[in-house]
């Protein structure tokens, strides 16, 4: 579903719409996903942005992101957006650091820095 400009119903407001059968397969989260969760909670605790700010960014990512990205792929994007909005980081900083991280290696393990933020 897309946002409906006539009624003001947005894509994420799905209560009562048709839905298929419920897929009950489940798995635990990877470490990077747990870290995203932790970053969002800590940013909230420190007053940088609220859970409402996170939700608003997630909603603004639209239905395609909901269908095609995983939960924490959306969360990390929404977290980044809120951090830029509240002035803690700039997009330029984020892009520069992402390029640097991506150049470190081909896997998540290899891309960890060797400073205090990364795996030892």
């Amino acid at each position, binding site marked *: 579903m897309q946002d409906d400009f006539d009624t003001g119903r*947005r894509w994420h407001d799905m209560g*009562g719409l048709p839905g298929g059968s419920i897929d009950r397969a489940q798995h635990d989260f990877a470490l990077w996903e747990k870290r995203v969760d932790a970053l969002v909670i800590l940013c909230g605790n420190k007053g940088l942005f609220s859970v409402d*700010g996170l*939700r*608003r960014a997630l909603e603004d990512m639209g239905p395609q992101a909901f269908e095609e990205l995983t939960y924490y792929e959306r969360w990390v994007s929404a977290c980044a957006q809120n951090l830029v909005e509240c002035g803690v980081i700039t997009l330029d900083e984020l892009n520069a650091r992402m390029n640097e991280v991506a150049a470190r290696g081909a896997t998540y393990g290899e891309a960890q820095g060797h400073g205090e933020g990364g795996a030892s």
Partner: protein
Amino acid sequence: MTAPLPEVVPTGFPPPYPTAGGRFRPGQAVRVRHGMALGHLRTPFYLRGRVGRIERICGDFQNPEELAYNHRNGMALTLYRVRFTMAEIWGETAERPADTLDAEIFEHWLEPSDAA
């Protein structure tokens, strides 16, 4: 045809959150406003225009419509839990008309209803 509004069943315990303040009282019939907004809000579309009864007063909370955009200095608003019948929400297509649904709705999305 809609089923009668559910009477609020008292839990037998004091309400868990403050009941002072706020425009509406437990048991009162209220209608969820129709709203037109594409920003962030927490009033589900399927409840807009529907009549329910105040089940309890949850307390006063900051407005998510402001918090979502990092406006933090607004007035706290009274939040209510409102009980609806499935008949009221879904009309004749309700799976079981007498089943019920509670949702939390902020005061500015509610108006008094004449429903008995």
